[in-house]
């Protein structure tokens, strides 16, 4: 269960990271009338953070938990 729990904590941490980066006041730092690489900064910022978050989620979930849970039987 250790692996499962650690994964839960890591993902919860990613949630908090995303919640902070996607929201004001951090968002106001990127919400400027400026273009970067020909794209308005706020769009670029949101998509980059979004992509980064997904990438981090891939990293966290790719690690296999050390103990596998045995198959459970449910009534059908």
């Amino acid at each position, binding site marked *: 269960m250790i692996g499962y729990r650690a994964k839960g904590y890591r993902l919860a941490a990613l949630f908090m990271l995303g919640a902070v980066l996607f*929201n*004001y006041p951090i968002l106001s730092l990127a919400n400027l*009338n400026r273009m970067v690489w020909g794209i308005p900064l706020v769009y670029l910022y949101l998509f980059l953070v979004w992509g980064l978050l997904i990438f981090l989620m891939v990293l966290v979930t790719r690690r296999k938990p050390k103990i596998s849970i045995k198959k459970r039987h449910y009534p059908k």
Partner: protein
Amino acid sequence: MLATETILFYSFGYMGLLFAIAYYGDKRADAGRSIISNPYIYALSLAVYCTAWTFYGSVGLATRSGPRFLTIYLGPTLMAALGWVVLRKIIRISKVHRITSIADFIGSRYGKSTTMGYVVTIIAVLGVVPYISLQLKAIAVGFLLLKSYPFHSMTAKFADFPMFQDTAFYVALILAVFAILFGTRHLEATERHEGLVAAIAFESIIKLVAFAAVGVFVTYGMYDGFGDIMHRAREIPELRRIFVSPPESGDSADWGIYIFLSMMAILCLPRQFQIAVVENVNEDHLNKAIWLFPLYLLAINIFVVPVAFGGVLHFSYGIVDADTFVLTLPLTRHQTALALFVFLGGMSAATGMVIVETVALSTMISNHLVMPILLRLPFPQFARRTDYSSLLIITRRAAIVLVLLLGYAYFRYIGEFYALVSIGLISFAAVAQFAPAILGGIFWKGGTRAGALCGLLAGFGIWLYTLVLPTLVHAGHLPYSFVADGPYGIGLLKPYQLFGLQGFDSISHAVFWSMLFNVATYVGVSLFGPVRPIEHTQAALFVDVYKYSGAPGESSFRRGTASVFEIKSLLRRFLGKKRTEEGLAQYAEQHQINWKKEMVADSGLVDYAEKMLAGAIGSASAHVMVSSVVKEEPLGIEEVMGILDETRQVIEYSHELEKATAELKAANERLKELDRLKDEFISTVTHELRTPLTSIRSLSEIIHDTPDIDREKLNTFSEIIIKESERLTRLISQVLDFHKFESGRMDWQFTWIDLRDIIDDALAATHQLIRENNIQVSRHLPAQLQTVPGDRDRLIQVMLNLISNAVKFCEPQNGKIEITLNETPDHVRINIKDNGIGISPENQKIIFEQFKQVKDIRRGRPVGTGLGLTISRRIIEFHKGKIWVKSEAGQGAVFSFTVPKGNSL
């Protein structure tokens, strides 16, 4: 531009393809080779979240509010990260409890409540109807646009058309048919819909590809890439304005609330629950899905901004409804094939949503609205019905038609005045009301039925007032002053500025107030309101699901039995014969039960039956039905508390620990005492051994060192040496005897014995000792005596012991020992009386204990090992007799022992 026939042909062709996929998926599932059992299909099917709103509406919202449209996808991305904690728990709970819908989930959590089921179902239907109407609108608009562009302006009112020429009405009917075909094809009501999921996953691919196609066409076909569009857009003031999130007042609050709202929606929308929880094949699919799903959302949003800006650049502001850019842009360039593909993409987004949503809602309506009412109706012919399964299916089909007609009605009378996104957000705000009850329900055991019910009703009430009533105003059904001045002119009750709150848009305003009231009421009433025992039970089962879900039988505290026959016939009524037999056979196999022999269904089987039934008619109804045949032993409040109250468990546990510790302590004390006794024993024994040894050795040395020792002295010395050696021998043999007794290895040789012989033999053996001490011995023995069974040598040993003791303690000069023997019907008793110093009462108790010697100050250490009386007692007890002493200090002592006659053995 396109012939109606062409559009219809492709539309129905597409639907036919979907149906083929669903059919194939079902067939594979029946064959046991599921095509949906992998994380990719699971993630794609989750993308049913992206509806016509995403497909058409995001572009429209982007032209109005810039990046705001992204909040609807950032929320679910964040929720996906929490999915491992939240969604996995919901999935596990739902699997264990065979939960089929969100109403079932909430109802089951709060004490299998039927009332909760009603409320959740009604809120879900009312909340989601606008959302369904949005899909109808999107398909109808797309269809008309494709057919008559550019002659038909997007702003025309559909309400002007007579009903039977109204495309949306036909769309609703066709979708109803498809939803029925997809969702309720099986007569078995409980199966997961593998085919449906396969079709939804396919639709997700189509809508993504279609949107990407139009995105690429606009970005690279009509313009020269992202940079080009942005560069041109910069020249347009209206577009430059939305290069940032518009910094009007309240935007930061709105932004956060929108993200929050979409987070709650992805969890609480009935269709998301259906796909993510009910249709989930394997919990572990979450592993990949929690990043695949956000990736899908990101992908489908990449081209929103270029299409929005490109559309505004092409048409300039306000001429064409921005919600239709994805269709109108290809059409202006005469790309009819692309436009048709995009239309199919939009249709896939809309149909996917409608089909899953109506299937989910129909399950809720039939299980939580219709069935509970029907089962409570006092119609005897209904209660006697032997087969409900077809009735269930009919109810569900009717519910699908009803929901779609409601959607059409909403569209016709209210919805067409709104942009797609606004309609969708109204639905989001409605289903978000479930979030406190769900999240509180899985993480907080204290949440009660009353709390959840009041919270839901409070939140729903606020939602109705702040979002739904104003839409009636806009549609002209209520006077405008209701919004502008508040009802009856009360300014504090203005639906868009409740209690005077300003600075929010209408959606975030409604979300803020409704969630505040919802959560506050939920928590408040839960903490201070009433609770029933079953709520405790369910709360524990939900919150601690990982703890209790080891095996199916463990996930319930139901106690009660029923007859197997009753259980069987109950299951048959709802599930049909085949599924009942299958289910029971499976249970029998797992628990090795022979149904032919088994007459009484134990609580495990009752619980299993209830879960089987819950899959078909929902947990609340299943609970009622099973309870009707079960002789339930009421679950006592103590037991519930015992089960739930972890503190109590811990206390009990520590009590046990304390008890064990105390036992250990006692054992340790005993060991210590034994150890002490052993030490004492060894020191006593060695001392006793050393005293004679010392005298033997010193006397031998004198004899050895003095060659001219006179004869008399030599005699005396050697006599002492002999006596001391005898004493040593006696001592050693006593220790050995004692050891034999203690370890139980003594050999006993029982014969019939005359106890008078024993006395004579013992006196003969101690003759020397008695004479030396000038003691007079008198015997009083009867003439006739019955023989007793006993070990001769051992009994002599006892006699010897007692006599030598008596000799030891007799008065030195005038010693008298009196031995008497008398007979009772069962025993022969021997008494040995001396006239010595006597034994004090406290010493009488201990002299038979091992190593206890009476220490007499006047005479110093007594001679002996302290084992003699102990050994004597062991011997007498082995003969089932008794040994004791009577004495008063200074008056001598009487040692007595009895040996039972053979007849009493």
